[in-house]
Structures are given as C-alpha cells and as structure tokens.
C-alpha cells in the first residue's frame, strides 16, 4: 500500500470499502475531496450544495461499500459519481441542468481534460490567499463575482487603470507561483 491517496488502485479502494478500512478511506477522501468539490461546484454553482454532494457521496461509499465495486481509475470513478449526484440533486430541486453537465455525463473522454482544469483551480484557490489584500479583493470581485472592470472601479471608488493594474498584478503572481514556476500545460 502506498502512502499517497492518489496512488490507491481501484482494487485497493474496493477492498477498503468492503473491509471498512478507515485508513484507506481517509486517504481517498484527503486526496480527492477538494477536486470533487470543485467539480460539483462547476455543475451546481452553489457552495453548500457542492459540499453536500461530496459528503453524501462519501457517506454512500462507506455505508454501501459492500455492494460497490470500483473499476478503472479511482479518480474518474469519483468524478463520474459526483457528476451523477450533482445532476440528480439539481433535478430533485427542479433547478436547471446545464447542457455541459449532461454532455459530460455521457462522454468519458473529457475526464483527462477536466482533471488538469480542476487541479489548476485548486492551485489558484491556494495561491489567491497569498495576494496582497487590495489585489485579492479586486481579483475576487472580477473572477468569483464576475464583475466587469468598470463595475469594480465604481464599487470601490478607484480608477479603471488601478483595476487593470491590480488584475495584471494578480495574474502575474499566479502565473509565476503556479506549480512552483513550472510552465502551465
């Protein structure tokens, strides 16, 4: 058994669920829960609901472990499970399910592509904490809240030039620090 949750194979994961091996279960959770949260958020666009989807998936895995066989790649199995759950939750709440979610549900090939995207997001969320407070505020308004530069300038009572300057600072910081300076892609 490897120490790193990312390297747990489908067989090891299945055995762990059957045998209620909490150690392995914890490693799987620690390795993947954040990515799964980001993926769930992508579909449900709701922080609390995304978290609930991830937690309920793991509760299900633990409680119904006897009847579960994980096949293929553990990460992809979990991605699929969390996507299905997200879509079911949206339907249950009569909320709109995006075309993208449905397409993706039907298409295995997008799995690899989405992994890189989620890992990049994970890094961004971590790095954003390191931005200077003003710079972070402006970046969050732009990216997380989707405000246009003009709206940010109005809201904060600063010039448009300052907004562009701070956004550029943020992007450059992220780009330099991402994966410790490794090139993207």
């Amino acid at each position, binding site marked *: 058994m490897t120490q790193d949750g990312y390297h747990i194979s489908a067989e090891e994961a299945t055995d762990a669920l059957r045998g209620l091996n909490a150690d392995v279960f914890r490693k799987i*959770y620690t390795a993947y829960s954040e990515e799964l*949260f980001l993926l769930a958020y992508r579909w449900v666009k709701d922080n609390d609901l995304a978290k609930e989807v991830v*937690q309920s998936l793991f509760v299900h895995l633990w409680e119904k472990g006897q009847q579960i066989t994980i096949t293929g790649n553990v990460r992809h199995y979990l991605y699929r499970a969390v996507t299905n759950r997200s879509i079911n939750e949206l339907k249950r709440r009569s909320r709109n399910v995006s075309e993208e979610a449905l397409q993706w549900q039907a298409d295995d090939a997008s799995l690899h592509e989405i992994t890189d995207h989620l890992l990049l997001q994970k890094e*961004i969320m971590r790095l*954003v904490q390191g931005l200077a407070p003003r710079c972070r505020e402006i970046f969050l308004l732009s*990216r*997380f809240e989707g405000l246009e530069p003009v709206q940010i300038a109005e809201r904060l009572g600063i010039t448009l030039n300052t907004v562009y300057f701070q956004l550029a600072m943020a*992007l450059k910081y*992220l780009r330099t620090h991402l994966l410790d300076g490794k090139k993207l*892609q």
Partner: protein
Amino acid sequence: MNKNDVTEFVIDCLTDPGNRDKQAALNQWLQESEENRHLYAELKQLWEAAADVPPVPFNVQEGWQELSEQIIPSAPVKHLFPWKIVAAAAVLLLLVAGGWWWQTSRDGWITYTTPAYYVDSIGLPDGSRIYMKAGSSLAYRKSFKEREVRLLKGEAYFDVVQDPQRQFLVIADKSTVKVLGTAFNVRIDSAYTEVIVFEGKVSLHSGGKKLVLNSGDGNLATVNRKDDEMKHPEGNYSNKCAWATNELVFENEEAEYVAKVISAHYHISIINIAEDLRHKRITLRLHNTPRDEAINIFGAVLGQE
C-alpha cells in the same frame, strides 16, 4: 510594452471581447511572436479557470471531521472510565520497570485521544465528565489534585461537578477557561480557540485579557490563535453543544434555519418545508428526542403535514 502593460492589455482584451479595435490589436500582437502566443494562452487559461472557482475554499480537514462524525453513530459511547484502563496498563508497566519509575512519574500526564470515528466520553476522578468529538485529544494529571485539563486537539464538552474549593481549568492553546461548576464546550481548530457556555458561567483568559462568559445570549467567544484577538459576538450558541447535550432549543427562529440545524444534528438530508412556511418563526425545544419523533414535533409545530 513592458510586462505589466502586456498583462493589462491581455486582460483588457479578455474582458471586452466585443471590441473590434482591441481584438485587432490583439491579433496583431499575437502574430508578432511565438512567445506572445504562449503567454496569451497561459494568461487566458488562468483567467478562465479562476472564473469558475467557488467563493469559499474547501477545507479538507474540516470536511473529514464532519464526515467521520456522520458515518459513525453520533451518540456518545460511554466508556467505563478509560483512565482506569490506562492506569491498569501503567501498573503493569510498573511491575516491570520497578519502583524507581513510580517515584519519578507517579503523577504523570495521562493523554486520552478519541478514536477517529467516535464521539466518546470520559469520567474524571472528581466526577466531572468530558465528551470528546472524534479525533480529539486531551491530557490531565493522574492524581487530578489540581482540576486541570489540557485540550490538545479537537473539540470537547465539559460537564463540571461543583467544587467551591477547587476551580476547574481547561487550557487550550494559549487560552485558559476557569470555572467552579458548569458546562461548556471548547474547540480548537487551526485558527481559533472557541468557548461556548451551556450552563452557568466561566472566565476566559488569553493574552493577558479576561472575559466572563454567561450562558444564554452572548455565550460564545473566540480567540485568534495567532494574535490573541478575542471576539464575543451576540447570540445564543447553545445548539452548537447539541452533539454532547442532545438538546436543541429554538426561540423565535425561522423554520428554514431550524430545519437546517435539526437535519445536521440527526445527520439526515435537509427536511423539506413548504414555500410559504419557510420564514415562519417558531419556538421549539428538543431534549434527548429520537430522530423520527423530532421530525414529527417539528412538523407539528410548523403546522405542516
């Protein structure tokens, strides 16, 4: 253009895709070199990836903590005085190690850590009882001559027996809670130490400051572990002790909020409430109430089937 201007220029183009002049300038700039195209691709990827990021980060440790409480029955498993078991083990050790060891460490610290999946409770020599969340850890001196407990990790609820002669201390990180007889909850996470008084009153000491907390309104205080800043918000936070007390009290609260707290306490998916009743204010008290009964009571008070 210097580096900052380039990034600003790229952002300008990304945020204004409908502007032809800007797109033309961008295309021209991209034509200029492979390096430009590469830089643009990276910035665009970052820009777009950041757009879908949720506003609140996901805390893996907290998530795991909640999950481990959820997948295991939450009722406290009453251990028969584990300190006795620890003491018995210590006695065995003594027989092997001999009297010298006894002399030097007979009043050593006993550390008790709950299993990763169980809420547990331990009885102290003075008759007080401590409920501990899964994965929590505390220590106290074996003799318990001084009533002093150190919370090392996690969250614990203290039900302290009255003894006017001897105060009871809980030390959590740099904060100390002093009491005579009362019930309260202490939690440490990576950033804060949090104290909630369920019954009676305690005094909280940290970084040279002192704060007296009473049960009822204003019964919670937090201490920032980095700079010792104390916060004392309004409101009654007793329901946060329900994991140990099995008591939930709502006074004039919105039904939607009540449903959320009850659902979380019983580890069930959120109870559905009719649209027109969501903001109805209700008053409700549940004490040691089994899950199904609690749901029925809630439904009855709310006036929905």
